[in-house]
C-alpha cells in the first residue's frame, strides 16, 4: 500500500509516535529546546496532513481505513469524510499557535508538557476520525487522561482542587458513556456507526425504549463534554483554573462533544431512524438556547478575565448546539461555520487573558482597576478584534455564522425563540466584553507602577495568528461556506456512508449467535433466547 492509502490513520499515529519520542527526549532544561523543536515540527506536519485530507474530502470521497485489514462491521474503521477532515484541520490550526505560545515559557513550569500535548492531539484526532462507537470512547479516554494532567500543569492549590473535581466528574461521565454504549450494543448488536445507522431503524418500538435510554445516556455524556446546560457548571471553574495555553487548547474539547452529538444523535438517531427518529430534537433546542443564556449571564457576573472567556465558551457552544437542534442541512452548515470561528476566537481570547494578566502585576486577571498594561494599544486592539468577532459584528466571521444560523432558523417553528436568544446573547456579549475592556484598559490607575514588562512579539504573535485565522474565515467565507454546506449534506446521506464503509446498504450484525430472521432483529437484554434456527442449546441456569 502506498502512503496515500494510509493517510486517514496518520493524524492519529503521528502525535502518538511524537509523544513517545518526546518522552525519550525528556524535559530537562538542556533538552527543552529539542523537545520544542520536535513538538512544533510534528504539529506542523500534522497540519500538512490535515490540509491534504481536507483536499481529498472536499471532492466528496470518503476515506475509509480498515485497521488491521478487518472488514467493516467486525473490525474498527476510521472514516474521513468532509466533517472529520474539517475538524482535523481545525485541531491543527488551533494546536500550532497554542503550542507556540506554550513554548514562550509555560511548558517549563511542569513536567512532560509536550508529550502530554501530543497525546491530547492523538485523542482529539482519533475521536474525529473513528467510525466506531466504542473506539470513540477509547479516544475520549486518551484525550481526557492527557487533559487531566495538562489541567493541573503548573500545579498550585486552586488547580489541584478544581482538577480533582474535573477528573471525578469526567470519570463519572465515562461510566455513563460505557452504560450508554452497552445499551446500544445490547439492542442493536453492533457498534460500527455506519452499521448502527442501518440497524437503529429496524429496532421495533417496544425494544427501542432500551435503545433510546442508551442514546439519551450518550446525550448526557456528550452534553457534559460540550457543556450543555444543566451540565455546564464545571467548565468555567476548570478552564479558568488551567494555564492559558491549556485553556486555549481545551477550547476544542467542548467541540468534541458537539461533534459526537452530531454524529450519533444527528445522523444515527436522525430523521430516518424509525421508532427512534429525531430522538433528541425536543430536548436539544431548548437546552441549547438555555446554554446560550446561562453562558452570557455567567460572563456578566464573572470576576476574572479567564472565567469570563470560559463563560463565553459556554455561550458559543450553545449557539452551535442551537444550529444542531434545528436538524437541517442549512442549520448544520451554519453550526459548522460558527464552530470553526468560535473555537479559534475563544482560544485567542484565553491566550489574550494570559497576556493581559502578565502585565497587570498584583491585579492579575481580576476585573478590577489595576496598573496600566505595558502595551495598551496592542492588547486592546486584539481584544477589540476578538470581541467584535465573538459578538457577531460585521464583517467578522461571527456575524456571518450568526446570519447563516438566523436564516436557517427563519422557517423553523421555534424561529422567534432562536432569533430572540441569538440576538440578545450577541448584545449581552458586547456589554460583557466592553465592560471588561474598559476596566482593564481605560480604568487603569495611574498612581500604581506599571505591572509588567511588555510582551515580546513571540509571545503575542500566536494570539494574533489565531485572530487572523478567524478573519481569514471571513475573507474566504464563500469557499468555507460551500465546504460546510457540502459537509452537512454529506452527513445526511447515510446510504453513501454505509456503501463506503460496509460495501452495501443491508444491515449486518456482528453478533455470532443470532440467526438473520429470528423473530425481529433484537431480543431484550437479560432475556436470552436461542434463535429459532439454532437448537435450543442454552442450558437452564441453576
Amino acid at each position, binding site marked *: 500500500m502506498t502512503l496515500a492509502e494510509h493517510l486517514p490513520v496518520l493524524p492519529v499515529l503521528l502525535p502518538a509516535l511524537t509523544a513517545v519520542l518526546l518522552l525519550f527526549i525528556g524535559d530537562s532544561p538542556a533538552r527543552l529546546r529539542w523537545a520544542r523543536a520536535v513538538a512544533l515540527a510534528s504539529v506542523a506536519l500534522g497540519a500538512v496532513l490535515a490540509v491534504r485530507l481536507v483536499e481529498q474530502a472536499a471532492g466528496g470521497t470518503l476515506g475509509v481505513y480498515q485497521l488491521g485489514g478487518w472488514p467493516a462491521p467486525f473490525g474498527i474503521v476510521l472514516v474521513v469524510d468532509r466533517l472529520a477532515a474539517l475538524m482535523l484541520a481545525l485541531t491543527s490550526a488551533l494546536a500550532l499557535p497554542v503550542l507556540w505560545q506554550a513554548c514562550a515559557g509555560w511548558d517549563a513550569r511542569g513536567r512532560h508538557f509536550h508529550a502530554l500535548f501530543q497525546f491530547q492531539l492523538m485523542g482529539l484526532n482519533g475521536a474525529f476520525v473513528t467510525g466506531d462507537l*466504542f473506539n470513540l470512547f*477509547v479516544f475520549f*479516554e486518551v484525550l481526557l*487522561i492527557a487533559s*487531566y*494532567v495538562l489541567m*493541573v500543569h503548573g*500545579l498550585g*492549590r486552586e488547580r*489541584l*482542587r478544581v*482538577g*480533582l*473535581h474535573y*477528573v*471525578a466528574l469526567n*470519570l*463519572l461521565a*465515562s*461510566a455513563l458513556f*460505557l*452504560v450508554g*454504549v*452497552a*445499551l446500544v*450494543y*445490547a439492542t442493536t448488536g453492533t*457498534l460500527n456507526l455506519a452499521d448502527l445507522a442501518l440497524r437503529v431503524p429496524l429496532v421495533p418500538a417496544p425494544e427501542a425504549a432500551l435503545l433510546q435510554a442508551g442514546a439519551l445516556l450518550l446525550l448526557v455524556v456528550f452534553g457534559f463534554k460540550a457543556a450543555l446546560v444543566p451540565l455546564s457548571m464545571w467548565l468555567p471553574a476548570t478552564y479558568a483554573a488551567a494555564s492559558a495555553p491549556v485553556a486555549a487548547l481545551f477550547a476544542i474539547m467542548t467541540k468534541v462533544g458537539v461533534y459526537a452529538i452530531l454524529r450519533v444523535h444527528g445522523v444515527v438517531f436522525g430523521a430516518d431512524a424509525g421508532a427512534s427518529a429525531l430522538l433528541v430534537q425536543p430536548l436539544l433546542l431548548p437546552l441549547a438556547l438555555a446554554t446560550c443564556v446561562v453562558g452570557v449571564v455567567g460572563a456578566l457576573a464573572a470576576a476574572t478575565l479567564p472565567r469570563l472567556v470560559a463563560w463565553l465558551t459556554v455561550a458559543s457552544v450553545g449557539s452551535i448546539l442551537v444550529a444542531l437542534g434545528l436538524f437541517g442541512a442549512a442549520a448544520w452548515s451554519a453550526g459548522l461555520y460558527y464552530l470553526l470561528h468560535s473555537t479559534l476566537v475563544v482560544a485567542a481570547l484565553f491566550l489574550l487573558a494570559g497576556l493581559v494578566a502578565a502585565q497587570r502585576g498584583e491585579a492579575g486577571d481580576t476585573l478590577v482597576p489595576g496598573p496600566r498594561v505595558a502595551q495598551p494599544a496592542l492588547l486592546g486592539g486584539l481584544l477589540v478584534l476578538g470581541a467584535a468577532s465573538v459578538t457577531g459584528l460585521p464583517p467578522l466571521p461571527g456575524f456571518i455564522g450568526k446570519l447563516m444560523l438566523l436564516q436557517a432558523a427563519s422557517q423553523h417553528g421555534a424561529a422567534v425563540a432562536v432569533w430572540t436568544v441569538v440576538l440578545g446573547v450577541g448584545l449581552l456579549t458586547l456589554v460583557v466584553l466592553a465592560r471588561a475592556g474598559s476596566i482593564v484598559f481605560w480604568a487603569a490607575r495611574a498612581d500604581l507602577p506599571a505591572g509588567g514588562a511588555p510582551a515580546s512579539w513571540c509571545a503575542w504573535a500566536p494570539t494574533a495568528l489565531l485572530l487572523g485565522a478567524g478573519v481569514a474565515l471571513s475573507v474566504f467565507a464563500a469557499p468555507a461556506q460551500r465546504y460546510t454546506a457540502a459537509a452537512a449534506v454529506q452527513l445526511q446521506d447515510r446510504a453513501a456512508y454505509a456503501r463506503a464503509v460496509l460495501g452495501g446498504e443491508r444491515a449486518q450484525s*456482528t*453478533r*455470532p*449467535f443470532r440467526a438473520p430472521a429470528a423473530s425481529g432483529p433484537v431480543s431484550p*437484554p*437479560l*432475556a*436470552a433466547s*436461542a434463535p429459532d434456527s*439454532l*437448537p435450543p*442449546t*442454552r*442450558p437452564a*441456569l*441453576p
Partner: protein
Amino acid sequence: MLSMEFLFASGIGFVTAAGVYLLLRARSFPVVLGLTLLGYAVNVFIFITGRLWLGAAPIVGSSPALADPLPQALVLTAIVIGFATTGFVIELALRGRHEQGSDHVDGAPADGAATPGEAGPLR
C-alpha cells in the same frame, strides 16, 4: 428460586447505588472508592450485554452455543482504562490532600476545622 438474571440485575443495582452514595461524600477517599465501585458495576453491565450463557465458549465451532465475544473484549478495554484512571485519581487526591492540608473535596473548610497532618472524620 432466584434467576441468574435477577441476581445480576439487583447486584449491579446495589453496587451502583453504593458507588453513587460514596461519590456524594465530601472526602476524596470515599469519592475514589465510589468511582471504583461504579466502574465495577459498569464492567459487569457491559459483560452481560452479551446475554447470560452457560457452557458456551466465545469461539466459533467449540460448542453448540456461542457466547458473544465482543462484550468480553469491551470489558477488558474498560477494565484497563478504569485501572489507569483510578491510579491517577488516587495520586491526584493524595497530592491535593498534601497541598491543602485536608482531604475535603472543596479544600479546607472555611472555619479551618481540618489541620494539616490529620484528616477529619467522615461527615
